[in-house]
């Protein structure tokens, strides 16, 4: 995974709560065996009409959204299925951070393993961002802060390990593999075997 330290970008606002991973990437596109190319199907059924043409009403299709790397979405983003295809699709499309008042557990975990930054903020700041689409924001992963143009830096929660992995672009499997010996000892000394 690529290191991610600072993101400065305009925001795209998706004014909807409880956006589930079936909307982010519908199940019929999960028959792929690769992780590449899913950006073309991001929010497929909202982004495209049944005939395959772009739905001009959908936020990602608006001219102002082009090139924006930060998605501001309603409460409880990423609920539903555990498909890692959801962060893969967002990243492949060019989204590098998601801001919400709440992000679902499995989606959050999957995002952190791929370099998509989950930014959970208070309702007041969120309300403001929701009503100011296109505004430029600064996300500083090293300091875990979000700064809105001319505003003060707001802290967002992220555990130290995940933050370290993001800013160094570290694959967590390497960390686990380093503890092979501890795992072996656990297996040998536990009182029962599964």
């Amino acid at each position, binding site marked *: 995974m690529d290191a991610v330290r600072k993101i400065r970008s305009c925001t795209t606002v998706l004014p909807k709560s409880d956006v589930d991973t079936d*909307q982010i990437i519908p199940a019929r596109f999960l028959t792929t065996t*690769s992780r590449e190319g899913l950006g073309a199907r991001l929010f497929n059924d909202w982004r495209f009409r049944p005939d395959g043409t772009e739905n001009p009403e959908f936020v990602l299709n608006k001219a102002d959204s082009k090139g924006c790397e930060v998605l501001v979405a309603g409460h409880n983003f990423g609920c539903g299925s*555990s498909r890692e295809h959801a962060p893969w699709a967002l990243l492949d499309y060019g989204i590098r951070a998601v801001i919400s008042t709440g992000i679902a*557990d*499995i989606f959050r975990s999957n995002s952190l393993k791929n370099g998509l930054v989950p930014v959970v903020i208070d309702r007041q700041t969120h309300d403001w961002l929701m009503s100011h689409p296109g505004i430029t924001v600064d996300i500083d992963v090293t300091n875990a802060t979000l700064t809105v143009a001319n505003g003060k830096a707001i802290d967002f929660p992220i555990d130290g390990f995940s933050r370290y992995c993001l800013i160094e672009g570290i694959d*967590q499997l390497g960390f*686990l593999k380093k503890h092979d010996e501890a795992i072996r000892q656990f297996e040998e000394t536990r009182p029962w075997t599964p």
Partner: protein
Amino acid sequence: MNAGNSRTLFEKVWADHIVMAETADTPAILYIDLHLIHEVTTPQAFTLLREKALPVRRPDLTLGTMDHSTPTTPVRSFKDLAVVGEGAANQVAKMQDNCRDFGLELFGFDSDYRGIVHVIGPELGATQPGKTIVCGDSHTSTHGAFGALAFGIGTTEVGHVLATQCLLQRKSKTLAINVSGKLQAGVTAKDVILAIIGEIGVGGGTGHIIEFRGQVISAMDMEARMTICNMSIEAGARAGMIAPDDTTIEYLKGRPRSPDRTDWDDAVRRWRALPSDADAVFDNSVDIRAGTLEPMVTFGTNPGMVVPINDPVPEANGDPGFRKALDYMRLSPGKPLTESPVDIVFVGSCTNSRLSDLRQAADIVRGRKIAPGVTMLVVPGSQQIKHEAESLGLHKVFESAGAEWRESGCSMCIGMNGDTVPSGRLSVSTSNRNFEGRQGIGARTILASPLTAAASAIEGRVADPRRYL
């Protein structure tokens, strides 16, 4: 968080699997006892293992099946099974190759034990109290019904478990949901869990592991408990757990992967020590009174948008998302769902495809015909359940009523295998998600119990099952 020696069920299972404790800087290394795998969320993980030239650390703790992309159309022999679509066929082939190359047990097309991953784990007795169980599927929470710590993971984590049998995890908070009282006739586990999600919301369990407790839960059989834990994730909780008891132990006796005779007594002794201590403290708790619950049906586009079956669809609450959900569902506030004509009825999925679910649906359908214009699909959760149901003649009950009786699989719950609800059609489904497009592009889904689904098939509109009891 508990001081002293009092611990919750979750805290006991967690502590038993710590290879390395968490610190301020690093998450815990948690050992995994059972890794369930299926064709959709594993191919990229196997690619990673190949790139890094890593073997699967514990093939003996890994168990595979194929359920999501697999056809359910009746066949004479499995040689006749035609997987729908090039992508799905490729995925199924990859799963077979990966399991062969890495030496993993696969309950494939020719296996009598093939089925939905969350149905076969318990059925085999591989799901046991006190185990840690993961799978690249959010409904892994199902296995928590046995007092296991079971949760869904992403594909990167599938790779971690294949390579190391461990996961990096931060400890979750605990949420006790106490369900007290006694259920009325016609009100089932599905109605209870839908009511709970309606109460706490689809994000209400985020960051928590739920323990379902109380008289209603204790009185449930294992299949009902699985329905409850299955939908923990629909309330945002990665895992839901229920304390193991006599019902759990009785269920596991004599199953192919249950501890054998020499280990059985030790295992039972261990399982008996797992329930939360009497004075254990949970971070949060919610009380649900079951006595007044009614059959529940969803009206919107997430499982938290749910009402008792005879209640009107709630008035729009000013939230633009609420209005949009009703527009998608083509429902009007103020009217009960029981006026809505139904096109499709689906009985199946890891939520409600076990023998007791099929029996409940069959009891309503028996001797009746499904309404003209309604398509009803009955998809058993596993080949074992299919055989059991057939030995009881349930397939004849469904077929005589005009329903379709299928091979096992996820089928119309997720619509990856060609079993889909056509655009704009209204489906009453025993599955777990009523998200936009979940059952097919433009499909409109009402989640309900097997009883409500069967009654709706007979009447051709959303129907209260209690008049058939």
